[in-house]
């Protein structure tokens, strides 16, 4: 019997039928469905003991007391440190990404040197030799070595500024923030010492003028916890929260009252309140009170309505609430966390003084004795300095260090500022991530991620008590990074600059000892809180204030730039996981959205979704319109933190950078660079 075609077909059919009586089809169907549970290209979980180590996370500007959760020794998550008063278990939306940001695609893997338009990897030794060589010739030349720091609280600043002082330079600057504005007012104009604090824990009324305390002002987790503690879910509220500002921000959303105040009207509003308080018999023991009262008297309700857009009735209501409260606290700031005027800051101090709630935190003793005083440095004006450099009025730095900051992106009129930064002979970025400044730098010396390093925080701005916190390395290093202060100490040693320490750990130990705190308790995540009060002696500085407050009101549409912590900070682009929290009324696809109310949109001739061009300060951005009745008439609100040109594919090229159109002007009377509430022209595209 030959195997012809038909027989073969029958053979095959028989085979197929037979297969049905074997496990083959059934087992294969089952196993392939099991295979679909465990596709090899989908990552597996790690197993092992789950542990949590406490540290202080400085991913957000003020920092969060956290516990880093690990599985089998590898960090995978973050939770709050319930035992630390700053956290009480809470974490901010940025620090919640801490473990993921350890392995962010934007991390710089090791020291890099600019080579043409690209970067070349070099060793730490090479980097040190290169810098030492460059700095050797600059020692003793004033203004040739400069630094910009974005870390308002760390002792690392002492090492860096001490090092600069050792090289004969005093060009040490902090990135602009509400803290620096307040330092300019309190430590500069008013001649006070220490740091202004806000005792939210003890307050029965909190009035926020501009300061978005629930979102981005100061240590937000502590702010939220402090307010929440006095507003139990059931039972009586023991704190009233008032918000005054041009936009119904997150603070306003949970406030008892929102008082719309035009973006440039904060100072007038505060002075108007001061006037009413003084009229009700309130006084302050600060110097120059009489002069101040005279100034405040100029801000009667009508003047305030004109300057700030606040109705008399609303002003009276707030004043009355302040008078009725036992422990009212006024928190002032800018909705964007920067660029606010000295006038508003000073008026805030004055209001608190009138209300008897002026809180001054003493400075902790320095560890690096050569280092200049922090408050003096904070009061300096980095924007004005860079403008001077650009104009040739100040020497162009040969070496410019950038620590924990991203000035090329985050300074007002960012594009122009980046150009000035690029003029520096050697721009050195100590950045953990490939941010815009690092991308511009000639040398990138990556700092470890906050979980990989030893660091500290002394009284993050916004707290009500002098507080000291320690951050320890709780995660294994992911990249070839070196702690910046350690690197600087090494460099100092090479250049013969004696800072008194060889390692940053010793600096911090000395600091902790000087403070009188316990290292082990701090390393375990505890906070050292001092009840000591700083001196509240100062002058109200009314003459400067008078000129500042008399500044002509900006005309046209005003810009209210908003700082939202979940979108990131100037120094940290939106982490990949935080992108989900960015609303589609802020960013959609590649389009930035700016918010305005229907009345404003109508007067500008634009409608929902329309593409617009916003121009100010010689720069422009493009955006789409989102209607939002929570924005005052005549105001355009825009979120900061988008429009990245460096970082990773998650954020690069998404939206536009609102910092570009923050138009800087010099505040009359103080000369301080201000940009909050600047005018912007909106044109339909």
């Amino acid at each position, binding site marked *: 019997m030959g195997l012809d075609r038909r027989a073969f077909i029958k053979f095959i059919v028989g085979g197929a039928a037979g297969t049905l009586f074997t496990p083959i089809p059934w087992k294969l*169907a089952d196993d392939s*469905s099991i295979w*679909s549970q465990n596709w090899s290209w989908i990552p597996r979980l790690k197993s092992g003991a789950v542990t949590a180590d406490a540290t202080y996370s400085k991913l957000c500007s003020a920092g969060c007391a956290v516990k880093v959760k690990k599985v089998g020794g590898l960090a995978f998550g973050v939770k709050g440190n319930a035992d630390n008063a700053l956290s009480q278990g809470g974490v901010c939306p940025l620090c919640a990404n801490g473990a993921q940001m350890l392995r962010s695609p934007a991390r710089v893997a090791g020291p890099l040197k600019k080579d043409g338009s690209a970067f070349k990897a070099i060793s730490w030794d090479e980097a040190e030799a290169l810098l030492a060589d460059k700095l050797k010739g600059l020692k003793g030349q004033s203004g040739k070595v400069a630094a910009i720091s974005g870390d308002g609280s760390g002792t690392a600043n002492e090492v860096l500024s001490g090092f600069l002082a050792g090289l004969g330079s005093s060009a040490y600057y902090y990135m602009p923030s509400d803290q620096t504005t307040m330092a300019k007012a309190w430590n500069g104009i008013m001649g006070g010492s220490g740091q202004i604090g806000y005792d939210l824990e003890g307050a029965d009324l909190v009035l926020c003028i501009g300061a978005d305390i629930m979102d981005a002002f100061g240590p937000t987790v502590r702010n939220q916890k402090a307010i929440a503690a006095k507003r139990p879910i059931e039972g009586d509220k023991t704190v009233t929260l008032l918000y005054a500002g041009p936009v119904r921000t997150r603070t306003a959303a949970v406030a008892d009252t929102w008082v719309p105040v035009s973006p440039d009207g904060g100072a007038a509003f505060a002075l108007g309140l001061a006037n009413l308080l003084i009229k009700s018999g309130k006084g302050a023991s600060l110097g120059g009170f009489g002069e101040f009262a005279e100034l405040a008297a100029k801000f009667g309700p009508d003047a305030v309505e004109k300057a700030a857009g606040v109705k008399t009735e609303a002003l009276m209501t707030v004043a009355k609430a302040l008078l009725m409260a036992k422990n009212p606290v006024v928190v002032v700031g800018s909705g964007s966390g920067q660029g606010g005027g000295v006038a508003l800051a000073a008026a805030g101090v004055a209001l608190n003084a009138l209300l008897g709630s002026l809180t001054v935190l003493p400075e902790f003793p320095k560890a690096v004795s050569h280092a200049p005083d922090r408050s003096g440095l904070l009061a300096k004006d980095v924007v004005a300095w860079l403008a001077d450099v650009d104009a040739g009025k100040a020497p162009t730095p040969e070496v410019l260090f950038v620590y924990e900051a991203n000035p090329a992106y985050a300074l007002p009129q960012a594009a122009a500022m980046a150009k000035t930064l690029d003029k520096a002979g050697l721009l050195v970025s100590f950045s953990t991530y490939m941010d815009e400044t690092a991308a511009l730098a000639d040398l990138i010396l990556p700092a470890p991620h906050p979980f990989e390093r030893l660091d500290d925080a002394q009284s993050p701005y916004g707290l009500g008590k002098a507080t000291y916190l320690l951050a320890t390395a709780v995660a294994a290093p992911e990249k070839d990074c070196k702690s910046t202060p350690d690197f600087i100490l090494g460099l100092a040693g090479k250049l013969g600059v004696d800072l008194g320490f060889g390692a940053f750990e010793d600096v911090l130990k000395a600091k902790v000892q000087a403070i009188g705190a316990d290292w082990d308790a701090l390393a375990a995540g505890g906070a050292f809180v001092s009840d000591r009060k700083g001196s509240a002696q100062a002058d109200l500085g009314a003459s400067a204030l008078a000129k500042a407050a008399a500044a002509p009101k900006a005309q046209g549409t005003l810009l209210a730039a908003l700082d939202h912590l979940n979108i990131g900070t100037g120094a940290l682009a939106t982490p990949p996981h935080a992108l989900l929290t960015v609303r589609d009324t802020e960013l959609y696809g590649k389009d930035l959205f700016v918010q305005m109310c229907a009345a404003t949109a109508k007067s500008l001739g634009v409608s929902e979704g329309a593409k617009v061009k916003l121009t100010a300060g010689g720069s422009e951005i493009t955006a789409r319109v989102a209607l939002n009745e929570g924005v005052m008439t005549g105001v355009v609100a825009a979120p900061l933190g988008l429009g990245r040109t460096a970082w990773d594919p998650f954020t690069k090229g998404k939206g536009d950078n609102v910092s570009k159109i923050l138009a800087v002007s010099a505040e009359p009377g103080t000369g301080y660079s201000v940009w909050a509430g600047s005018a912007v022209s909106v044109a339909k595209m």
Partner: protein
Amino acid sequence: MDSKLFPEGIERCSLGKFLAWLGFIAIGLAWGGYAAGVIFYKGIGVTGLDNYFGFGLWITFDLAVIALGAGAFFTGFLKYILKIDQLKNIINLTVIVGFICYSGAMLVLTLDIGQPIRAWFGYWHPNVHSMLTEVIFCITCYCMVLVIEFLPLILEQKQLNKVPFLHHLAHQMHVHMALFAGVGAFLSTFHQGSLGGMYGVLFGRPYAFREGFFIWPWTFFLFVLSAVGSGPVFTVLVCTFMEKLTGRKLVDFKTKSLMGKIAGTMLTVYMFFKLLDTWAWATGVLPHMGLTFEQMFYGTIYGQWMFWTELVICGVVPAIMLITPAIRNRPCLLYLAGILDCLGIVINRYVFTVQTIAFPVMPFDKWYTYAPNWAEWAPSVMIIAYGFLVMSLSYRYLPVFPQEKGLSGK
């Protein structure tokens, strides 16, 4: 070339022309095949579906073809169970159309589910409470019935029929066809009803939800009735389309008109209950949920025009046209009524699928719109091309139309 394979005494176009026609069909198949490849490799993220619109074009397509394919079971029921003998002229076509619709729907479903490897879980781990389980079981079972009904037609192919065994097999199957027609009618009624129930039970979706009696049996029978009210005329339309395409008379107009009458009657019954149901929904179900009729519609894409088009222009109007003998007996009006009827059913399936889930139930949520993209259109086109292919081959090689020889001569 292949004339030996043609049905007895029938002429067909040249093989070359036929191959060119197949080539044209192949374009549609290839496009859909490519899309299917991308979808299997990458996942259905490549489609225009999203979290708000988990059901879209594909499900609409499935529901629509399953409704329109209902001509098969209903005509079979009338022919074999109720013995309306005239329907023998078109019964083969209804079976083929039914087969194409059901097998096509199943093909789309394998694309539509996220994990096709697990498709068999529907049988192995069934949830007896789920309408979808019923649908899965009934559709597959009924598809098998359709295969059994289709088989004798294939076996009657001129050459195959020469094999005595196959000849007898075909004959025996014909003898017992009433049984299959009965089983088919039972299964179909069941799953057409379940398809209606699939939406009726969504108590979180006010657009589709009906309460108690209005789910069972009301919604179930609305779907059954709408299917039998449109399936027969769809077969007539397919037949007429084929006649126009081939230039040959295939079925006499009397039969077509009868089919129109059948569909028209069912459609009239359907519209009666549908209008009652809609009225009860608008004045009872919705207010009970705190909603108004107007809130169910949005903009143009989900506007009221579609609602009225479905119910009046494509519902009441064709129903009247089909039950009025004077209108029904004029070919162009019969076809127009048929088109309106089928369109109405497609709109019905579309709004139940898409508008149901488009309506923002949470008061602070908003309407989103959905539009299918190429990755959904391509497989749908593929299924249509597949239908054309099966139909073309059947027409060329199988004795589908008993009247063709008599009507067209030669």
